[in-house]
């Protein structure tokens, strides 16, 4: 068990290194010369050259990559071109709305999708099954911002049940405004995720339900519900958890867009605004942070395997 965890963590290192290399290359090859920007309009070529040397921008790619990595490890993601603030500080200011949105969506998606998938597998071949699958194909095909607009138009503009846009910070004494603001974004963002998880849950459940031990359980008179949720779902857990981990990438990407639709001041809005201003350090910092989050989530998923399936020992 312990050896497995150590091995998995070590296996993550090359992936993290390659991600870092990709994202470093992004800023390295980005158009525009930071030295010239800092020097300003009045600077002579000699001034620019001096600033470039003082910033270390004249050194080779590899040297700069390792220096940059060392800064990242210390939590320094550079300085925004536009606001001159440290990128890590700007991300930290925007992290709460994004984190709230993603956690709420994750909770909502899993608690809806897994029962739906189990239901579809249980009622395999009936209209309930077909309805769930049609729903899944639908949400796979409609982009998250379209779902967002449809929900906002129906439930916020027409019915006035929820606020159209905006965000209220979380507070323990009164979490209701926070939740009210996030219901529609989470539902929009969760649609595709629900579809993904429900599909895998159904497929895996169907496979498990055809196993001999399920037949044995039926034969000795175990009733439907314990069979579905105790015997079958537990054995179907590994593929479901895997797809939740993989689907997290879509969740992160979708969050960036959802935040734009619902005017949530999160990390996604930060990066979208940065694109319009070509603020490369911010784009780089956000992409790096979100990619590391994704790697970390999948590492956790791998470690969860041992919990669900004690046979797994690599």
């Amino acid at each position, binding site marked *: 068990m312990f050896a497995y965890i150590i091995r998995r963590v070590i296996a993550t290192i090359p992936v993290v290194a390659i991600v870092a290399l990709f*994202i470093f290359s*992004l800023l390295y090859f*980005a158009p525009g010369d930071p030295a010239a920007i800092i020097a300003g309009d009045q600077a002579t070529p000699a001034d620019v050259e001096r600033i470039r040397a003082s910033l270390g921008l004249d050194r080779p790619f590899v040297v700069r990559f390792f220096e940059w990595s060392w800064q990242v490890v210390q939590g320094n993601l550079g300085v925004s071109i536009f606001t001159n603030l440290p990128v890590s500080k700007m991300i930290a200011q925007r992290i709460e709305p994004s984190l709230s949105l993603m956690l709420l969506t994750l909770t909502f998606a899993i608690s809806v999708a897994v029962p739906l998938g189990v239901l579809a597998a249980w009622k395999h071949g009936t209209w309930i099954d077909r309805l769930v699958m049609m729903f899944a194909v639908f949400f*796979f*095909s409609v982009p998250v*911002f379209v779902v967002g607009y449809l929900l906002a138009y129906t439930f916020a503009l027409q019915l006035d049940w929820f606020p159209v846009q905006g965000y209220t910070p979380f507070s323990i004494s009164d979490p209701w405004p926070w939740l009210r603001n996030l219901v529609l974004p989470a539902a929009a963002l969760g649609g595709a995720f629900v579809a993904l998880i429900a599909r895998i849950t159904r497929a895996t459940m169907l496979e498990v339900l055809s196993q001999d031990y399920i037949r044995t359980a039926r034969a000795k008179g175990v009733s439907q519900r314990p069979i579905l949720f105790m015997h079958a779902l537990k054995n179907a857990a590994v593929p479901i958890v895997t797809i939740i981990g993989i689907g997290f*990438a879509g969740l992160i990407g979708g969050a960036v867009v959802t935040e734009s639709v619902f005017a949530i001041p999160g990390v996604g809005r930060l*990066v979208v605004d940065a694109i319009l201003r070509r603020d490369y350090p911010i784009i780089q910092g956000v992409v790096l942070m979100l990619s590391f989050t994704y790697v970390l989530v*999948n590492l956790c998923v791998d470690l969860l395997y041992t919990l669900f399936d004690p046979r797994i020992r690599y």
Partner: protein
Amino acid sequence: MSSTILDPAIAAELPDVLPARKQRGKVAMFAYRHPSIFAGGLLVSLVVASAVFAPLLGTVDPTALAPAKRLRVPSEIYWFGTDMLGRDIYSRVLYGTRVSLQVGVMVALFASVIGMFIGLTSGFIRVLDTVVMRVMDGLMSIPGILLAIALMALTRGSVGNVIIAITITEIPRVARLVRGVVLSLREQPYVEAAVAAGTRVPKIIWKHILPNTLAPITVQATFICASAMITEATLSFIGAGTPPTIPSWGNIMAEGRALWQVKPFIVLFPAMFLSITVLSINLLGDGLRDALDPRMAKKI
């Protein structure tokens, strides 16, 4: 190379090929046995047709400005209304079909060919395998949209750059798939027999490996086409995609964004077209998967 891959656009024509035999029973039979391919193919054919024949379908110049006629609601003259610059949304949406289809088909094609090459290399040249697959893992660890955003931030917005950016995010999926197929095929007795008989590697790849990767790649290419269209629309929507001068579905929606609460139809029509197109391509992909690869169909 590209002719060996079933192009989604060609696959879309499948149901249309059948009536040429003048046997109505066969069409009905096909529709009955493969409802997803039939329905998806039919819808995709319609979308392709509306893109090809856009100039003949009652459209006007999609970029023609008419400030006096801006923000008209849908009517008999302006079927889908006009946007804030007075451009006819119906024409823009129909011409936008061309951009979306172009992006979807090109990305599917390039990602399949390049991914197949990488997958074959990685599956056959074991020395490279670890390095290549770690690089693929790294690429896959950057959420697709973010990688595309980052790549687009580097370059000018153009349809070509959008295609390149999305292709790069989709390549690892194909490479992994092909590598998996290669590794399992290499264990097959008939491949081992061919190796024992002294068949050269290029011939083994051509005769035994490639034909077996075509079915899963075709299915994957359909899904890549669908997801590339969504990615393109998303990129344009947040302002990192095709340049605003080109009428693409994402751009029309981006322009309607500021006004969606008062003029929801600007966003609604391109959104509808995008969703229906992607839905029909996904249907086609599901159908092809069931028909071509029963093993895969059972798994997903």
